[in-house]
């Protein structure tokens, strides 16, 4: 077993991608993910990999499209405004069913926004983001160790489903330092007989394409994609439950806010309130089932996000009116404190509701 080292989240993703066999990275600098592009610039040449700083996020995602089409493991990373620029390419990647890993270290928005942590790209990440009916698998780690582990999983999931996988972090996770160890990746990248490699004796040519001029064929292709997404929903949903068994109140939070929530519920438990956390690890597919199950024991949910309220829509869809769903959030790059969530939990516990 490898020893534990102290690393920033951004760097841990970079090293984990190398462990996963990624040898191609295309990116463009943006705060707060610069440590990741810098790590790749230094690390990939050491393993005979390709690091390329593109002229824009648009070019970077299209280089990813090309490299994935050519059959290799490939990654790009950015932060909110840069991820917006990548959406065209992500839609083409979805349409052409290409595997790749995209990292978004979210910051405050909209527009140029702020450079501090945010979670306001939830809609963009989980509902598609670009044009057309498609889904990315969205993974939301909440520690540096999990960022490393989930990055390795991300490459395997991408290849397994021929689908883009987005790692949705934020500026806090990307820049905070924690001990991390890197486990060997056991999964081997599958053969990619569909890739554009040159014919090399093959009789039929491989074409990577998302254009279907005949609408019936386009619809058939959409049926194929939707069937794949249904399978992913059935098999790849992940979440973590923390002290939910006896909880009257369940906080729903992902990523860095789930860490803040841990401190808040500890304090609320000490004050005699039975409260737990349901943490989605996959944001798409969203863990609706554990929320539905909790409706038989919990009396209320509090959704806790660094946004004006985005994931709360998926929580409300899952709960479907069976329990009240309250919200506490901060926006613009403001990191909420455990104290403000604690006060919110206590208000709900007293029957005074939440925000």
């Amino acid at each position, binding site marked *: 077993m490898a020893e534990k080292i102290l690393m920033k989240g951004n760097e841990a993703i970079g090293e984990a991608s190398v462990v996963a066999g990624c040898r*191609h990275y*295309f990116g463009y600098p943006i705060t707060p993910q610069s440590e990741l592009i810098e790590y790749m610039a230094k690390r990939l040449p050491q393993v005979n990999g*390709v690091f*390329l700083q*593109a*002229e*824009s996020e*648009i*070019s*970077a995602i*299209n*280089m*990813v*499209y*090309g*490299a*994935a*089409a*050519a*059959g*290799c493991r*490939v990654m790009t990373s950015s932060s909110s405004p840069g991820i917006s620029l990548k959406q*065209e*390419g992500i839609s*083409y990647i979805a349409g*052409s069913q290409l595997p790749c890993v995209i990292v978004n270290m979210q910051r405050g928005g909209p527009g140029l926004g702020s450079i501090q942590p945010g979670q306001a790209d939830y809609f963009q990440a989980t509902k598609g983001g670009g044009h057309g009916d498609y889904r990315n698998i969205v993974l939301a780690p909440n520690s540096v160790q999990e960022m490393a582990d989930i990055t390795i999983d991300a490459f395997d999931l991408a290849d397994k489903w021929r689908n883009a996988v987005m790692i949705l972090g934020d500026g806090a996770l990307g820049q905070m330092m924690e001990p991390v160890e890197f486990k060997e990746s056991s999964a081997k990248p599958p053969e990619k007989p569909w890739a*554009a*490699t*040159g*014919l*090399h*004796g093959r009789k039929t*040519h*491989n*074409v*990577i*394409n*998302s*254009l279907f001029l005949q609408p019936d064929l386009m619809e058939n292709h959409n049926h194929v994609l939707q069937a794949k997404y249904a399978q992913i929903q059935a098999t790849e949903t992940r979440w973590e439950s923390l002290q939910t068994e006896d909880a009257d109140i369940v906080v729903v939070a992902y990523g860095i806010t789930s860490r803040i929530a841990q401190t808040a519920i500890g304090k609320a438990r000490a004050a005699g309130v039975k409260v737990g956390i349901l943490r989605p690890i996959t944001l798409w597919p969203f863990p609706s089932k554990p929320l539905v199950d909790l409706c038989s024991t919990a009396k209320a949910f509090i959704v806790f996000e660094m946004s004006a309220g985005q994931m709360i829509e998926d929580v409300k869809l899952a709960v479907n009116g069976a329990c009240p769903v309250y919200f506490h959030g901060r926006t613009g790059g403001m990191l909420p404190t455990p104290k403000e969530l604690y006060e919110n939990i206590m208000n709900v516990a007293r029957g005074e509701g939440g925000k």
Partner: protein
Amino acid sequence: MAEKVFGRPESLADIPTHYCPGCHHGIIHRLVAEVIDELKVMDKTIGIASVGCSVLAYDYFNLDMVQAAHGRAPAVATGVKRVHPEGVVFTYQGDGDIAAIGTAEVVHAAARGERITTIFVNNAIYGMTGGQMAPTSLVNQVTTTSPYGRKLESAGMPIRLTEMLATLDGAKYLARVAVNTPANMAKAKAAIKKAFETQIAGIGFSMVEVLSTCPTNWGMTPIESAAWMEKNMMPYYPLGTYRSGEEAAK
């Protein structure tokens, strides 16, 4: 004994194309395929189709092909080439694709000296969408989005992309050709071959701009179109070599 002296290049698929009568895309496709055959690189060539009339090029070449988003073909080609450095990678793009929406991608691919070859077909109009003004449309040229003619005051002068790229050190072979006469076709094929050879030798970026007609959207017969191209396009877009492989080798 009959000897076969002329046939379809192996790299060109044996299917009808959707191109309009008098359009030069068919000739240009054929020249590219002949060059790939002659260089014996069909087995390791990957083509990038762009958005425009030539979007379906992925069906017309009997090669592994990747269809790219509008303007992004040089970035996609970069990704492919960096995975398969021993492969031969080319983009096939029109003037709207490369000189408007994709200007950044081609400029930076050329600046990096990316070992790819771009075939740039310039017909001074957006063909697929029905004849709108292109970055290469001539001053006073009437199109559906310049119904009173392209105005210098508001639209500026058309972009000469080949001359622009000639300022970049990474662009090692650049030429502008036409396929309006058999003599010009021979020169065009020689330029395309030189461009692919530049890539194969690992020297840097190469591009051949091919002037082309668009009879349908110009509103002319094929013969009138060829005459219009000679009279109006060639003076503004002079044929010739703008960067040569020899110069690059020094």
